[in-house]
Every structure is written in C-alpha cells, then in structure tokens.
C-alpha cells in the first residue's frame, strides 16, 4: 500500500510519457505495467518492426550495390539474426524507459491493475499478491490495445499458422509463403520485410486500395513498387472458405472479379486492434464507452468519471504511439493544474515504413473532394530530385494539397525514401497555419530530398522550377 498523486495503468508510450511529464511537474507518480516499459510500441510494435524494416532495406539495397561499384560476396539472408537484433533494440529501448523512470523518480509497480474507486487501484503482482495503492489526484488509464484476429472469417489467431504481428516479430525464419490480411501500415510493413527475406508474399486488402487511410495516389505508388518486387497485391479482396491446417492455411480469395484458391504456410492477420478495456473495472466505476468500444474522453482526457482519465489507444483512434504520447503530456499538465494546449487531432501525422515509405498529415484529396473544398494540388516527383538520383531512390513524390483561396495546407502526402522524416516540415507548417508560400520562402538546402517539399509547394502555386 502506497500513496501517489497519480497512477498510470499501462506503461506504453501514452502512459510512460504522461508519467514522465507528471513527474517533471512535481507529481508523485507511479505506473502499473505487467510486461515491460514502453508497451506495444517498444516491445511489440514500432521499434522492433522498424529494426526489421532496416534489415529489409539493407537486403534490397545489396541487390543494387553493384550499380554503385560495390559488389558484395554472397549475400545471405537470415531472418533469425535480424529478429534477434530487433529484439535487442527493443530491450535496449525498454531499458531506456526504465532509466528515465529512475531519473524522474517514477515508481514502476509490476503487475496488473484494477480500478478501486477513482482514487485507488489494486494491483495483482506476478506472484499472485494483491496490493492497493492510492492516487490522490488522478488515475490515468493507458492500457493500450491488442491484435484481435479475424475470427468472423475463420482466422482465429493460433500463433502458429495464423499469427499476429507479435509472433511475426519473433519468428526464427521466414515462411516460404505468407498471406498478410490487411494492408494498413502493419500489413504493408511486414509484406516489405518478408518479401525482402525471400517469402512469397500475398497482401490482401478488403478496401479498394492498400494503405486505405492514405491518399489514393500514395497507395497506388506503393502498390506499384510492391508489385515490382513480386509481392502479390490483391485489393477489394474477399476471403472465404478458410481452412486452417497444421502447417498451412488455405482460403478462397475473390478480387478483381477473379476467384482463386490460396494456400500458404502462414497467415499474418494485420487487421483489427481491440482496446484493452476488460478487467480494469470500468463498468464498476461507471466509465462510459464510445460506440466503437473505446473509452469516452473529454478534450481534457477525462472520462465520464471525474478524476479518472484515459489516454492512448484505449481512448480511441488514431491508434498511434505519437498520438498517445501527446495525450500523455496533455493529461499530465491537466492533472498538475496547468492549462495545456488541447490536442489537435487534425494534425496527427501518419507514417508507414515500408519501402518506399509513406507519410502524411491532414486531408487526403478524396476528403477534400468530399468536403467540397476548393483546393489546388502541387506534386513533385523524386525522379526529378538530384538528391534522390544520387542515392538511386527515385520512387515516389511529394504531394501538397492547398486551399485555393488562402494557400493553407489542407493535406500533405509523401511517398519515397525518408518520407517519414520529410513530412515533419509540413507538419510544423500545417500546425502553425503556414501557407505554402511560407514553406517556399524557407530556403531548402541543396541537394536534399526536402527540396521536393519546396518544389511541391511551388507547384501548387503554379511556379515549379525543377520539373
């Protein structure tokens, strides 16, 4: 039994960042976490996946090395080694969060928490003991989400032939063939990794485009690049007749008016995450949920119960680490009695790390059309970028959608090498309401990929120079 000012339930990016900010603001802070600090992001998501994608990038790059005058000996691909390196990076990051906790004097309570009133939680530790802890100012629920599989079409996760990203991250070797169901960020990233490591990959998406939340131009560009790499991309796909065997899975896939039988070693379900709302005692406390089953929160991150807050995936989409992190900062400042700037959900960037990378902020062109906005599009292909040519990575483009009248950045979409880094110039611009003219006025160093951002701004004004 200990007493704190604030207790975070869950030590993922939302919870741990919120805890650090709370501690910085002088609050006595604890985090209940049963697994490792850093949550899905550090242990089962962003970080290990990016480590594998880097391996995939090197594997692909090796194929081109001779063009650069570097001819390697025999290139061997070993997914097990890549996996182990990715686990090591993950562990290192988790330890990093532990260090930050110590530095900020945050208590890590190892165990599983349940609400005991709005000002206390009970924690069940690994050895089965139960202890109660007080939270004088607030309890913050940051329990995150988990992959849920697709039992409705017969793809119940069995961790062997029907797996989620969790298992994909710990495979010792790549399967000969794999079907990835769901071509969102996770699906596309694993398609990239497995293809680079030699699997025959079939990427299945029910929507008409892969990366359905991205601008259709970006989706098409990635689809083209994937097909070039012999990834079988099937969009508008309907799956039926799923038969899960001991060491293979078969199914009927209907796409583009064709029906075909697919038999693969492994199916990776990369669609659907469910918020972790069970077993924390929400009902007993009267915490309301949204129609989609997330915890309902106010703009100050407060749930329907005063003094009880929720942040991160459990509090609704977009289920992104950086969205959770910012919510963590906001909630900490609210609890500390400050008056933070409220979360601007219209300016959360998206990033997908397959090759070519995809990144975006704001509205897609289709959304602009749906809202009947008057807009102009500026587009600059990396093919015309000197820097992109030097590295031999000329796929993709920068696309900026601006308001026709005022030039405000309605949306920005980048496909290509380092897109996930390049987007941030436009995130800053959009967040601060710069127009494309301010973006162009900023001098971009030459030669850089970022010049493409300035050129796309100019193109939206009808003044592009290099294409």
């Amino acid at each position, binding site marked *: 039994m200990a007493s704190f000012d604030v207790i975070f339930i869950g030590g993922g990016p939302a919870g741990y960042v919120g805890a650090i900010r709370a501690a910085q603001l002088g609050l006595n802070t604890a985090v209940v976490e049963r697994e490792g600090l850093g949550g899905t992001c550090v242990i089962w998501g962003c970080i290990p996946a990016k480590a594998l994608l880097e391996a995939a990038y090197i594997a692909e790059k090796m194929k081109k090395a001779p063009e650069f005058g570097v001819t390697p000996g025999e290139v061997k691909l070993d997914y097990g080694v890549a996996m182990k390196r990715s686990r090591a990076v993950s562990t290192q990051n988790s330890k990093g969060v532990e260090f930050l906790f110590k530095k900020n004097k945050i208590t890590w309570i190892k165990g599983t928490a349940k609400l005991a009133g709005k000002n206390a939680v009970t924690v069940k530790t690994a050895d089965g003991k139960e202890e109660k802890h007080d939270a004088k100012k607030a309890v913050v629920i940051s329990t995150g989400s988990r992959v849920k599989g697709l039992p409705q079409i017969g793809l119940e996760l069995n961790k062997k032939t029907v797996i989620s990203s969790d298992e994909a991250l710990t495979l010792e070797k790549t399967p000969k063939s794999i079907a990835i169901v769901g071509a969102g960020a996770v699906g596309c990233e694993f398609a990239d990794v497995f293809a680079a490591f030699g699997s025959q990959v079939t990427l299945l998406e029910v929507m008409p485009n892969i990366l359905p939340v991205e601008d259709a131009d970006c989706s098409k560009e990635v689809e083209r690049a994937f097909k070039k790499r012999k990834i079988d991309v099937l969009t508008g796909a309907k799956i039926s007749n799923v038969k899960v065997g001991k060491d293979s899975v078969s199914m009927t896939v209907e796409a583009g008016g064709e029906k075909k039988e697919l038999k693969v070693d492994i199916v990776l379900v990369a669609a659907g995450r469910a918020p972790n709302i069970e077993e924390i005692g929400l009902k007993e406390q009267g915490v309301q949920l949204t129609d989609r089953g997330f915890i309902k929160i106010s703009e100050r991150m407060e749930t329907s119960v005063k003094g009880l807050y929720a942040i991160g995936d459990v509090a609704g989409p977009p289920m992104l680490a950086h969205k959770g992190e910012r919510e963590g900062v906001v909630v900490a400042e609210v609890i500390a*009695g*400050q*008056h933070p*700037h*409220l979360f601007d959900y219209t300016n959360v960037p998206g990033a997908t790390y397959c090759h070519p990378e995809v990144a975006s902020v704001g509205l897609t062109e289709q959304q602009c059309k749906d809202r009947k906005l008057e807009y102009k599009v500026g587009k600059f292909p990396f093919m015309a970028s000197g820097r992109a040519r030097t590295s031999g990575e000329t796929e993709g483009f920068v696309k900026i959608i601006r308001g026709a*009248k*005022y*030039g*405000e950045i309605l949306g920005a979409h980048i496909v290509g090498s380092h897109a996930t880094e390049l987007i941030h110039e436009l995130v800053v611009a959009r967040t*601060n*309401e*710069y*127009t494309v*003219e*301010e973006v162009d006025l900023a001098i971009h160093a030459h030669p850089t990929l970022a010049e493409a951002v300035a050129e796309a701004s100019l193109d939206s004004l009808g003044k592009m120079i290099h294409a």
Partner: protein
Amino acid sequence: MATKVFMEALSPTMEEGRLVKWLKNEGDAVKSGEALAEVETDKAIMELVARGDGVLRKRLINEGDSAPVGTLAGVIATADENIDALVAGAGSPAPAAGAPAPEKVVAGQQETAGASSVPRSGEEAQAEASTPPQQKVADIPPAISGGAPRTPAAPAGNAAPAKGDVRSSPLARRLASERGLDLNGVQGSGPNGRIIKRDIEAAAAAGAATPRAAAAAAPSAPVIPREGDFHDEPLSSIRKTIARRLGESIGPIPTFYLTAEFDLTRVMEMRKAMAELGDEFKVSVNDVLLKATAVALSQHPEVNAHWLGDKIRYHNRVHLGMAVATADGLIVPVIWDADRKRMSEISREAKELAKRARERKLKPEEFTGSTFSVSNLGMFGIDQFTAIINPPEAGILAIGTSEEKLVVVNGESVVRNRVRVTMSCDHRIIDGAVGAKFLQTLRRLIENPLMLVY
C-alpha cells in the same frame, strides 16, 4: 527591474478571473514560476505564477474580486525599488484588451520601474476612453514626456508597433486582411495567445449577424484600397463613448432603423417614357433605386463609411453592394463606382451580377469591397423589412414592394405608387439625424428622378 503581475488568460476562453486567494504576502520574496495567487477562471481554479524574481511589493487586486484579463494584479520588484509609477496604472486593464501573452509579460521584466508600458496603438483609443486623465499621465514614461510635443493618442516611446506586437499565424493574417478585421481586436487562442484561424472565424462570426451572409459577404473591405479613395478619421471622444455605450446596449453592432415611404409616381412616368423609346431603354424600379442610392451616398460620405474598430473610414467612392438570394444563401455582389455609372450600366451590371451570383460564378473581387449595401425583397411582396448590416459597413437599405396605395395629396385621396425603404444604421457611425438626412436626399432623388441627371 520590476516585473508586473497581470491577470493572465489561464484558459483559452477566459476573459476575466476572480482572485480567490493570494498565496504570497506583500513583502514576500518570490521566484519566477512560483505561484502567487489562486485564480478562478471560467473553467477551474488555476494558479497565477510569478514571471520574475524579487519581492512581491504590491497586491493590487483584493481577494474575492474579479478583474479582466490583462489587469495589473501586482508588482514584483527589488525591496527598495520605486514602483509608484507602476502602481499608478492599476485598476484599468493593461495593454492588451485580450490576453497578455507570456512574452508580453516577460518583456515587462525588461522595463524599468519608471517606464511603464503604454497601450499598443491599436488599443490606445479605447484605453484612453476608459482611463481617467490622471492615470493616463502616469502611463507616459517620464523620461520621454519632456521631449518633443506629441499627441496623447500616440506617445512615442510606445512599445512595438501594433503589427509586430500581435502574434498571429500567416493564415490568420490572410483571413483577417480579407475580412477587414483588425488583429488588435481579436483574442488569440493559439500558443501564447497567438491568433489562429479559428479566432478569426470566431471574430468574424461575432461581427456578422447572419452567418450565411457572413460566409458569402463578410469580406467587404475594399480589396485594394488606394490612397485618395477614402480618408480615415480618428474617433472623437464623443464618438468613442457613443460606440462603447451603444455597443454594450445591443450586440456588437448597435443598430437602429429608419423607415420612410417614397412616392414613385415620377419614377413610373420616367420608366414608361423610356420604355416607349424602345425595349433597350427599359429599366426596373430597382435599377432606379440603386442609382438613386448611389448618388445619395456620394452626397453623404458620412453614411458611406466603414467601422474599423479604432477609426471610421469614410469612402469617397461608392461601391454598392446588392444582396442577391441564391440557392446557397445570401451573397452581396458589388457594383463598383455605382454613383458614376449611368442607369443603363447599373441596370446591365445588376442583372449580370445577379445572374452570375445565382450560378455561383462570381469572382472574389465581385463580391468584396462594397462600401454600402442594398437589399430588396419587393419582388416577394414584402411591405417593409429590416436588413442586417454587412460589417464593417455603416448601414444597409431594405427596399420593400412598390405598390399602389391610397394617399392624401393636397387634401384629396389619390392612388399613388409608393415604396417603403428601411435603413439599418450602425449607431457607432451614423446618428439618427444623419441617417434621416440621407433618406431625405434619397427621397428627393426618387421623387424627382430627373435630379439623377443633375
């Protein structure tokens, strides 16, 4: 170095705060970032923190009292510093009518005790109106008040020019300039009080009575005002007081209405005579009324004016807005230099603009820049009505239906064609008598349409 403690905007929407409790006594040493007092905002109780180190020398708001954002709440200084000049300005809201951005307060740390801050030029006028003279004197830095003579309205030694002093996003600046909004009058809700798009939209919505009309027609400041097209008149004291008092009384635009009934007999005769010369010479009653209004406006610049917050802009050119109902709502295309155009030109242009308004094909310059507007619901059989002023214009003329009526002329009842017009007037610009004189001129022109060729 003294640091002023202001009532800060502790929530984005906070306009005033109640000082619940002082956490420091006069004479207590305080450090930057330390809580000085608890303040109740419109949302919660928050802490007001020190923005500088020193001794809390003076507490200027009593516990339990409310004060608008920007009010001087206290002074932090060294133990022996002379803070009289700072304290003298207490009680009246300091510089910004809106929230003093933390930067602003930090800047205060640089000020010496003698050189107190003076309202920015934009707020100058209002502050002057509400501040008793003796406080005003105390606000002028002694170090420079002995210099060259200057008008009280613009003391040199004044802080940064208004433009640089207001934090705003590029998009907000574009929106504001198009809508003729003065950023000085807009409260910012972005980081550190930065004015962002939503603030401009809120300010525009607050200023426009009909949202639909606002969406289409709010941008009504001249697109590119050229020198000589107008002259700006600083507000006189009485004008300021009228503006403030009447504004408090009714909404943001204190409006009053003047109705008059004009005899159209001669207009009808004229139209008939013209039509007999050929179809190409046909004009509508509305065309005549537009022309007459434009001519009357050219004779009454006091009505052909814009309210710009700290000044009134009197236009020498008449750009007449004409409200047109479209499927999407109201839009107000503009007949530029309507007073200098012939009736035939007005007739043709009015028809063309109305047609393109309905087709949503108007260019921006065709529905911005009006100096005064006219709305006509006569075709709907409306006897008379009041139209909503299209800010920042001074007034709008609402024209009813023209119809035959029994009226008494020289002791005899006769049937005459009559029309009722109602002018909505922004009382901050137009007084009752001024509006009445304008309608008098308009009556003379309409009842004697030959005057239109004079």
